[in-house]
């Protein structure tokens, strides 16, 4: 393996360093040790010699050599002490430690008075330091202690060897450690640097060989890892930038081509001008738009072709743009074509940056001549429409103010008539009738005017809902009959048994039919009025034809017939009254619903008005006037229930039909829907029982003969479940076993084929079980309130009054009313707020509410009310009898049979 360069350098450094340390420390050490040991040995020797000398005086004097020997023997055990000997006063060696004998050099030493310290060579034994100590100042002799200098040298040697070994070990460790460190740093570094060089040479694409090699390095946590990481990121960054640059260039190129083609092909004229108006560039569109070839305009002043009036504005604008003070709003200028025609151009401008290819101000202009002209026309039209609008809205706003007093007039006059009759003051009746009819006429007139003004101002709104046609006919007939009777006419209704449902604005259809029928009644005496209704299956239209045997019309009369404020004849107005708006309104209504009204008539032979309406009138009317359409059937039906018939009311008591025959479901659905019930059906017993538990219907119509679980079994199960036992069950069956039915708890037993009247009677019986509860009358206008209260009481209903929503809530808290008649516009708390508060309480949600208002209810308001109230009754739109009939109907619908649990 090749050693990393860094390591080679480091190795030399380490070797030099260690060599220096080894040599210098060895020398220093040797000197120190030598010095210290020498001193120590001499010190020791002196101490030993001194101690022997001190304690051997007696012994020497006693001449006890053995004890002396014993004493000096101890000291030879001390390291470094080579010999000890004692010379007595006579100069004889009396004790010594020499083996095998006293060397001659020592004998030499003994002869003279010894120096305190001497160095002597002993042949064959080396160099010694001899320390002598006098005993009794030399009188009793001397003690000599010798240390071997060779011992010192040996000690120094061994110490230095030990140190050298230690250094060698440290050196080896140092080398290994530095190699390890270096290879850990240098290896990755060389990878990184090689990678960097390759990168610099441009040969490596980032993400190729480099990173995989670098991968392990980048995982390191130290600086090398960080470096590698940084490198990798840098490489990736460089690559990404290069790629980005290329892409940007390409994008730029394409973009430039794209914009160039956009500019060249744009219908807009793109002009680049200097601040002084000199044209630097103009796009080819200038020729298409203005007929001036582009190349001819460049270098010329922009103002040359401008309308003289616009030129200063243009120059000001350009100056403003150049200064950066111009706003973004487009400017309009007139430009002359070569043929002399002035064209309006709309221009936007902005300053190009100074480094742009063509610096200056870019002006983007388009020909808006047509728009300009159209705008002028529209401005004129709007001015006219605004005037019309003001008129219409004035009329609309009048509605409430006009209707409220009229309502009182009509109501009181009606009531006064009855009271006058009751009081025997018959002479007042005709006057009262006149007041009444005049009021009604006035109300009708106002309504028509208002309707028409709404149509005119485009504010007439349609409220589409699905309803049963037959029910509509019945309603209309019931209301119109008094009018028919008035001129001694008879009304014939011709209709097929199953008309089915239609989807349209119920109110408008009804109003149209009323209008036609009342016209027919008005213009016919002692005649027959026929209402024929049929369904044109081919186009799915409902056709209402109202024929009379009246005076008829001439073609000329017919031509004016549907025009506003015109009746067939001026004279007829005087004779028959009316506004002359009814037919015009009806026609508009029909058109809005996608249908029309036609008329056939001959003078003296009567007339036939035919209304054709699409059965599903969702499509816009053919004349292009888009009615504002709202879908009244927006609330979704529960999907699990098969919709039995479209004509079912959204509200009303729920009945559950359990029968295996689908035709029974259909039949009963229609029949019961007409009676104001909601019907859900189950095809078999178990499902019926389940639905009974879930939906808790007001009543159950139960077939006996069913596959699987038969009616008897269903009946017993229903009656054995406390949760549903109280629901009355009406058995409908071919089987005549009344006894069993009653025994099992059936409320009623009817045999098939179903007798409508009988079923209706039975159901009504259930409804009427409800205990009489008061009707809450919420109305701020005291006169109206009083009138209504009296009318209701006359019918035998208890009435509670409230002058506004807040009071009404208090009343409701006192006693739950059977019905609430609610005015919308009231002080303090209006009808909407009241409803919100009322419906917020779960227990009060079921209280039926009928809105009686003089206000024109908008579609938005109607929607808001839709799921909160049962009926919206227009004040004055109903005669007293009609209103009472409506209330009666509502009460009947909501008079549920109460179970003991509910009481």
């Amino acid at each position, binding site marked *: 393996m090749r050693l990393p360069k860094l390591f080679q350098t480091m190795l030399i450094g380490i070797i030099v360093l260690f060599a220096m340390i080894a040599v210098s420390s060895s020398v220093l050490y040797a000197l120190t040790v030598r010095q210290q040991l020498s001193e120590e040995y001499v010190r020791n020797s002196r101490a030993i010699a001194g101690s022997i000398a001190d304690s051997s005086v007696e012994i020497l004097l006693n001449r*006890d*050599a*053995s004890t002396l020997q*014993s004493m000096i*023997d101890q000291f030879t055990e001390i390291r470094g002490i080579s010999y000890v000997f004692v010379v007595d006063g006579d100069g004889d060696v009396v004790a010594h430690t020499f083996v095998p004998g*006293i060397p001659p050099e020592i004998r030499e030493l003994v002869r003279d008075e010894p120096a305190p310290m001497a160095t002597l060579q002993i042949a064959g034994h080396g160099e010694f330091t001899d320390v002598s100590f006098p005993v009794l100042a030399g009188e009793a002799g001397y003690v000599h202690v010798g240390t071997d200098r060779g011992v010192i040298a040996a000690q120094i040697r061994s110490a230095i060897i030990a140190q050298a070994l230690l250094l060698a070990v440290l050196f080896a460790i140092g080398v290994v450690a530095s190699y390890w460190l270096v290879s850990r740093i240098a290896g990755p570094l060389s990878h990184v640097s090689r990678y960097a060089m390759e990168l610099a040479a441009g040969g490596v694409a980032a993400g190729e060989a480099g990173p995989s090699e670098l991968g392990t390095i980048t995982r390191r946590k130290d600086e090398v890892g960080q470096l590698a990481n940084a490198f990798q990121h840098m490489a990736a960054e460089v690559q990404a930038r290069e790629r980005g640059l290329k892409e940007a260039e390409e994008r730029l190129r394409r973009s430039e081509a794209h914009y160039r083609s956009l500019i060249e092909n744009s219908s807009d004229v793109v002009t680049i001008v200097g601040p002084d108006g000199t044209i630097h560039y103009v796009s080819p569109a200038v020729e298409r738009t203005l007929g001036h070839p582009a190349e001819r305009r460049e270098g010329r002043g922009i103002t040359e072709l401008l309308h003289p009036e616009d030129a200063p504005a243009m120059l000001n604008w350009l100056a403003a743009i150049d200064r950066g003070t111009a706003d973004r709003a487009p400017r309009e200028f007139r430009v002359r074509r070569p043929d002399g025609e002035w064209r309006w151009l709309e221009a936007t401008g902005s300053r190009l940056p100074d480094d742009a290819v063509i610096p200056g101000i870019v002006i983007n202009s388009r020909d808006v001549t047509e728009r300009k002209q159209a705008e002028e026309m529209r401005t004129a039209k709007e001015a006219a429409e605004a005037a019309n609008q003001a008129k219409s809205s004035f009329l609309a706003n009048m509605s409430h103010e006009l209707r409220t007093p009229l309502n009182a007039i009509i109501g009181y006059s009606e009531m006064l008539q009855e009271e006058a009759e009751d009081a025997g003051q018959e002479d007042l009746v005709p006057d009262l009738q006149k007041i009444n009819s005049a009021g009604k006429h006035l109300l009708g007139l106002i309504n028509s005017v208002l309707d028409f003004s709404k149509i005119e101002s485009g504010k007439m709104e349609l409220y589409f809902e699905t309803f049963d046609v037959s029910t509509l006919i019945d309603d209309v007939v019931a209301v119109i009959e008094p009018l028919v009777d008035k001129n001694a006419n008879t009304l014939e209704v011709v209709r097929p048994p199953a008309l089915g449902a239609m989807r349209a604005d119920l109110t408008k259809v009804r109003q149209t039919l009323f209008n036609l029928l009342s016209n027919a009644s008005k213009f016919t005496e002692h005649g027959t009025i026929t209402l024929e209704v049929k369904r044109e299956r081919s186009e799915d239209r409902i056709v209402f034809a109202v024929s009379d045997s009246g005076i008829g019309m001439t073609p000329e009369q017919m031509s004016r017939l549907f025009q506003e404020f015109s009746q067939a004849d001026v004279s007829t107005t005087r004779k028959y009254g009316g506004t002359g708006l009814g037919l015009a309104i009806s026609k508009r209504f029909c058109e809005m619903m996608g249908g029309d009204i036609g008329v056939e008539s001959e003078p003296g032979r009567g007339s036939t008005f035919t209304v054709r309406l699409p059965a599903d009138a969702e499509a816009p009317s053919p004349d292009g006037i888009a009615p504002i359409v709202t879908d009244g059937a927006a609330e979704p039906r529960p999907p699990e229930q098969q919709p039995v018939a479209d004509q079912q009311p959204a509200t009303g008591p729920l009945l559950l039909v359990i029968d295996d025959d689908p035709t029974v479901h259909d039949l009963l659905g229609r029949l019961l829907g007409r009676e104001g019930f909601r019907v859900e059906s189950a095809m078999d017993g178990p499902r019926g029982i389940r639905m009974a538990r879930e939906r808790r219907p007001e009543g159950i119509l139960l077939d006996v003969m069913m596959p699987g679980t038969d009616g008897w079994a269903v009946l017993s199960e229903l009656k054995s479940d406390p949760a549903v036992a109280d629901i009355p069950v009406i058995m409908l069956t071919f089987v005549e076993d009344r006894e069993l039915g009653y025994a099992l708890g059936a409320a009623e037993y009817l045999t098939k084929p179903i007798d409508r009247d009988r079923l209706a009677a039975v159901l009504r019986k259930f409804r009427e079980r409800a205990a009489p509860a008061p009707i809450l009358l919420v109305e701020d206008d005291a006169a109206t309130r009083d009138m209504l209260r009296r009318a209701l009481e006359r019918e035998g209903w208890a009435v509670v009054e409230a002058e506004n929503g807040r009071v009404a809530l208090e009343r409701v808290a006192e006693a739950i009313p059977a019905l609430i008649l609610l005015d919308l516009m009231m002080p303090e708390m209006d009808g909407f707020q009241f409803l919100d508060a009322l419906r917020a309480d779960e227990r009060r949600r079921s209280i039926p509410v009928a809105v009686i208002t003089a206000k024109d209810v908008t579609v938005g308001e109607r929607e808001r009310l839709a799921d909160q109230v049962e009926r919206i009754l227009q004040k004055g739109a109903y005669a007293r009898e009609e209103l009472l009939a409506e209330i009666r109907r509502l009460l009947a619908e909501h008079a549920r049979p109460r179970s003991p649990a509910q009481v």
Partner: protein
Amino acid sequence: VESVTRRRLLAVLASAACAIVACESPRGPVATNPPRPTAAPAGTSTGPVAPSSGAIVLGMSAAFRGPSRGLGIELYRGSMAYLEDVGRAGGVDGRQITIKPYDDGYEPTPAVRNTIRLVEHDRAFALFNYVGTPTVTRVLPLLKQHRERHVYLLFPFTGAQPHREPPYAEYVLNLRASYRQETQGLVERLASVGRRRIGVFYQADAYGRSGWDGVRRALRAYGLEMSAEATYRRGTSYSESMREQVEILRAAAPDAIISIGAYEACAAFIRDARDAGWGVPIANVSFVGSESLLALLMEMGENAGRDYTTNLINSQVVPSYDDTSLPAVREYREAIDRLNPMPPADLVDGDYESQRYSFVSFEGFLNAKLAVEVIRRMGGQFDRARLREVAESIRGLDIGIGAPVSFGGDRHQGLDIVYYTTVDQGRFVPIVDWGRWAQ
């Protein structure tokens, strides 16, 4: 509960040990483990009062290992040969007398350590049978240090001067004659046959110096100077060379060599001298351990095909064990043959081959005999403080060697007789005629 149980257990063990000692001590080498029972009662007192019950322990520090082990072992054997019989006979006043032996390897430092241990831990009644001058001279200050405890050293195996003179003489009772007496006798006898140039080969320590000093003093009495001297280091094995010493001495051409050393070094010296063709008479003092020396010389001579035993003179401080006319010799030989005691196995390296009889073991026998006599004379009052007083009262005691033993207030050495022997046919025999070395 536990401490009570343990204490009771210890008591049981202690009494069991006593019983074992009591019945087994007459038989075999059983001074093996005697100290426990003696130590236990002694533990109650730190004062000078001797143990009032159990065995009387004599503490012995000697060379049981190393080049001079023969001295320690033989000395011990001889003592035990006597003590076992005493024990078998019921002891002294019902007290067993045992030796607690420790090895010091003939080195001063272990000797000091052993002494402390014997005094402090083993509660030795007295120190006994210490071997060697360098060891004993170093122990002496310790005895002085503990003088209020009355620790006395009885009959050390050394003839050195320090424990025969103040200030230490009062703590030591010697039986044997001194080196000074031995060397003086040797010098006188050698001088008497005309050998006046005396060289000294000696151990470079207090022992050697003691002998050296003795020779020097004796020569000075004749107005003579030592003609040459050579030393050797203590602990030198016989396998080492003594040629250097031989040459140093031979250079001075002495008429005789007096050797103050241990048997291994002396054997080596004799061997190297004879090998060098130097037949000068070589005299050894008693400490050498004559039988050990002889055994080595015989062995080496056999190996070398030479006779190293000629011209050897050994001075002795006890009579020859071959002189069966002496009652003590007969007792000794009978007891040794019968008992053949050995030191505890853990004290001796296994390969030691003991001598049947030896001057050393005979000296040990006599030491023990005298010690028992001293103890007996205490009359049952084993108070250490009385030991010196009782010993000093001995006058003219016959211990069966034909020479009376006497002590006194200023006399702490029981015998003054030196016996001179030489080797004849592998045996030490008394020298009857010094004329053979006349010159």
